[in-house]
C-alpha cells in the first residue's frame, strides 16, 4: 500500500512577529552575470533567467559587462525622475488619507524600474502598464497636474472621472490605458507590437505585469503569441515579492525564478536587479535592441520589493514582518543611484537636497493647481459625459437614458 499523499501549501517563513528572512532569494554580485550579445540565439541564453543581472555594487560603483553607457545628464535625469516619483507618491497617499480621493497606490522602492525603462526606450514606444508604473509617466515628463486631476476625478480629469484613481491613460506619452483586471494588458502589448511589425513601423511595445499576476492565463497568451510571431515586445515582470498578502511562492516562484517562464517559449529571459537603475537600463536597452532587430520578444524579471502597502486599502503589518522592507537586501533604488553619482563625482549632498526640494515644490505646485479645480466629491465632470464614449456615437438607447437622467 502506498503512503498517503499530502498537499504542499506554500507559506513564507516571514510573517508578523518573525524575523525577515531573505535567505531563499537567489542573488548575484554586481557585475557577476555575463552579458551575451543581443544577437545571441534564445537557446543559448537560458542561464540569464537564473542569475541576477546587477551593475551597481554596494559602494555605488558600476561593475561588469552590463554597465550601460549613460552620460551624466541621463543619470541625473533618472535620479530626478525617481525622486519626483517618490515625492508624488507621498503626497497623493496623504491626499487619500485626507479624504481627497478614494484610493491610491505607491510604488515606493520600485522607482528605478519604471523610470529607467521609460528613459531607456524611445518616447514613441508604447507601454502597456499595470498600476505601479507611475514612474513611466513621470520620467516621460507627463503633467503631474493631469495625473492629480485623474486621481481627484475632478472636472479637469483627462479621463472624465471614469476610472479609479491612478488608472491613467496617456496616449501621447506612450502610456496605454490601465485596466483594473490583472494581466489583460500583456497580450494587448503583444498585439500592438505585432501591428507595428505588420505595418513596417519601427516602434516597439513594452508590457508590464506583477509577480502575482503572472498566474493569469493572459500572461501565457502573451508569451505564446510573442513567441510564435516573434513580436517586437518587451515583457516585464515586476517581482516585488508580494501580491497583496501572498508571497511569490503562491504564484509559482518558490522553486523557480519568474524569468525562467520565458524558456519554455524560446523567449530569452533576463533576471535583473530592479533596484539598480543601471541594470534596469542595460537590460531594457538589450531587449529593445533585440526587438528592433526583428529578433523578437524578451522577458525580463525585475527583482525588487514593494516597500509600501499594496494600496491605501491595505495594511501589510497584518501579514509580513514590520521591518522586512528595511532589511531588503537590494536596498533603495534612489539611494543606490545617488551613491553612484556621488562616487562618480557627479552629485553633491547639496545637489541631492536641491533635487528633493525641487521635486517637493513641483508636486506642491501641481497639487495646488489640481486642488484648485477640486478634489473627489467637490468637483466632477459633467453628468452628460457619463453617456459618452460607450460607443463612438451613442445608440438610441443611450440617448434615451441620458434624456431620462435629465442631462
Amino acid at each position: 500500500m502506498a503512503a498517503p499523499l499530502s498537499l504542499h501549501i506554500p507559506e513564507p517563513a516571514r510573517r508578523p512577529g518573525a524575523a525577515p528572512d531573505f535567505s531563499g532569494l537567489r542573488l548575484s554580485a554586481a557585475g557577476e552575470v555575463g552579458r551575451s550579445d543581443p544577437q545571441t540565439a534564445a537557446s543559448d541564453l537560458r542561464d540569464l533567467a537564473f542569475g541576477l543581472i546587477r551593475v551597481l555594487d554596494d559602494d555605488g560603483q558600476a561593475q561588469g559587462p552590463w554597465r550601460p553607457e549613460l552620460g551624466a545628464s541621463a543619470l541625473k535625469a533618472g535620479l530626478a525622475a525617481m525622486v519626483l516619483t517618490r515625492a508624488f507618491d507621498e503626497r497623493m497617499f496623504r491626499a487619500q488619507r485626507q479624504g481627497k480621493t478614494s484610493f491610491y497606490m505607491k510604488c515606493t522602492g520600485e522607482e528605478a524600474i519604471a523610470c529607467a525603462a521609460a528613459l531607456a526606450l524611445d518616447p514613441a514606444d508604447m507601454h502597456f502598464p499595470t498600476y505601479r508604473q507611475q514612474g513611466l509617466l513621470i520620467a516621460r515628463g507627463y503633467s503631474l497636474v493631469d495625473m492629480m486631476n485623474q486621481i481627484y476625478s475632478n472636472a479637469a480629469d483627462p479621463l472624465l472621472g471614469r476610472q479609479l484613481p491612478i488608472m491613467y491613460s496617456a496616449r501621447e506619452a506612450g502610456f496605454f490605458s490601465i485596466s483594473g483586471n490583472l494581466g489583460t494588458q500583456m497580450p494587448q502589448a503583444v498585439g500592438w507590437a505585432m501591428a507595428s511589425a505588420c505595418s513596417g513601423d519601427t516602434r516597439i511595445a513594452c508590457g508590464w505585469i506583477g509577480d502575482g499576476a503572472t498566474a493569469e492565463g493572459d500572461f501565457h497568451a502573451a508569451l505564446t503569441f510573442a513567441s510564435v510571431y516573434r513580436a517586437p515586445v518587451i515583457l516585464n515582470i515586476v517581482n516585488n515579492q508580494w501580491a497583496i498578502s501572498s508571497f511569490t511562492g503562491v504564484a509559482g516562484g518558490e522553486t523557480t525564478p519568474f524569468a525562467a517562464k520565458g524558456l519554455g517559449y524560446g523567449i530569452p529571459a533576463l533576471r535583473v536587479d530592479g533596484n539598480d537603475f543601471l541594470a534596469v537600463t542595460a537590460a531594457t536597452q538589450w531587449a529593445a535592441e533585440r526587438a528592433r532587430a526583428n529578433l523578437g520578444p524578451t522577458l525580463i524579471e525585475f527583482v525588487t520589493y514593494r516597500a509600501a502597502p499594496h494600496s491605501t486599502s491595505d495594511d501589510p503589518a497584518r501579514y509580513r514582518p514590520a521591518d522586512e522592507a528595511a532589511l531588503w537586501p537590494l536596498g533603495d533604488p534612489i539611494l543606490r543611484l545617488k551613491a553612484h553619482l556621488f562616487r562618480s563625482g557627479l552629485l553633491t549632498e547639496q545637489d541631492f537636497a536641491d533635487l528633493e526640494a525641487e521635486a517637493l515644490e513641483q508636486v506642491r505646485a501641481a497639487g495646488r493647481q489640481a486642488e484648485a479645480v477640486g478634489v473627489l466629491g467637490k468637483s466632477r465632470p459633467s453628468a452628460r459625459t457619463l453617456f459618452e464614449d460607450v460607443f463612438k456615437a451613442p445608440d438610441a438607447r443611450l440617448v434615451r437614458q441620458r434624456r431620462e437622467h435629465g442631462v
Partner: protein
Amino acid sequence: MPAMNMIQALNSALDVMLARDPKVLIFGQDVGYFGGVFRVTDGLQSKYGRTRCFDAPISENGLVGTAIGMGAYGLRPVVEIQFADYIYPAYDQLVSEAAKLRYRSAGQFSAPLTVRTPYGGGIFGGQTHSQSPESLFTHIAGLKTVIPSNPHDAKGLLIAAIEDDDPVLFLEPKRLYNGPFEGWRDRPSSPWAGHPMAETPMGHYSVPLGEAAVVQGGAAVTVLAYGTMVHVALAAAHHAGIDAEVIDLRTLVPLDLETITLSVKKTGRCVIVHEAPLTSGYGAELAALVQEHCFYHLEAPIRRVAGWDTPYPHALEWDYFPGPERIAEALRAVVEGEGV
C-alpha cells in the same frame, strides 16, 4: 442571538461548515493567513489548518478549474473571487464545465462548488470594483445564483449554497458588508447593529435556495429587488409615500416565481430594480416572466430601474447608481399607469 454584520455572518457560515464537514475547504486570493481583503475568512486558517483554508494564485480560471476537480473527487470547495469584476477569466470553467458537468456525464460527476464573490457598487470602486454580473450567470443552465441582502440570510443562504449539490454563484453585496444602505449618497451610513436581520444564530441553519422573502407588504405596487437594492427600494417606497410590496428575491436561480406572481396579481403593478446595466439585466427576465404570468392583472407597464448601459463610472457614481429618487419616480409612474 448575536447581532452580526454581513462579514461576520459569512465568516460564521464558513466556520460552521468547516467544522461540520471535513469535505469543505476554502481557497482564493489572500483568504488564508490574511483572512481575505474583506476579512470574510478571518481566523479560519489558524483554526482549521492550512489545507482547509489557503491562498491561491491570481488565476480565476485555475481557481474554479481546480475546484471543479476537487468537486469531482468528492470535496465541497468554496472559492473566493476577490471581486465579481474579476470572475470573467473563470467564465469558461463556470459556464462550460461546472454548469454542464452533471448533465454531460449523466450524473457520474458533479461540481458542488460554491463561488463567493463581492459584487455591486456604492463604494467608489470604479469600473472594476463595482460590477453586478448576475445576469451573465442566470442565463447558464446548471448554475444557481444567490444574493443575500442581510446578515441573517447571508449566513443561512451561504450554508445552503455549500450544502447544495450543484455549483452555486454566491454574490455578496459589498455595500452591505458593514451596514444596510438606503442609497442616499449624503446621509451617514448606519451599522447592522440594531437591524432585525442582523440577528444571526451562532450555529448551523440554512435559508433554502429558491424562496423569496416579502420584506414589506403593500397593495399599490410590487417591487422586485435583491442585494443592496432591497434596502434602496424600501427607502424609495418610503420616500415616495407609496404602499409598495417589496420582495427580496434572495435567489435568482432557482427563482420563486410563485411569490412574485401572487404579489403582482394582487397589486397589478410591478417595478424591478437592479444595479446592473439595464439591457439584458436580470430585470429583463423578471419583466418577461411577470408579463407572461400576470398579463391580465397588470394595470400599467412594468418598469425597470437599473444601471445605465454604460461602464460603471467613478466620479459620477451617484449619477449611475439607481438611487431612491429614480426608483421613487418609477413607483409613482407605475402607480399612475404611465407608459414610456
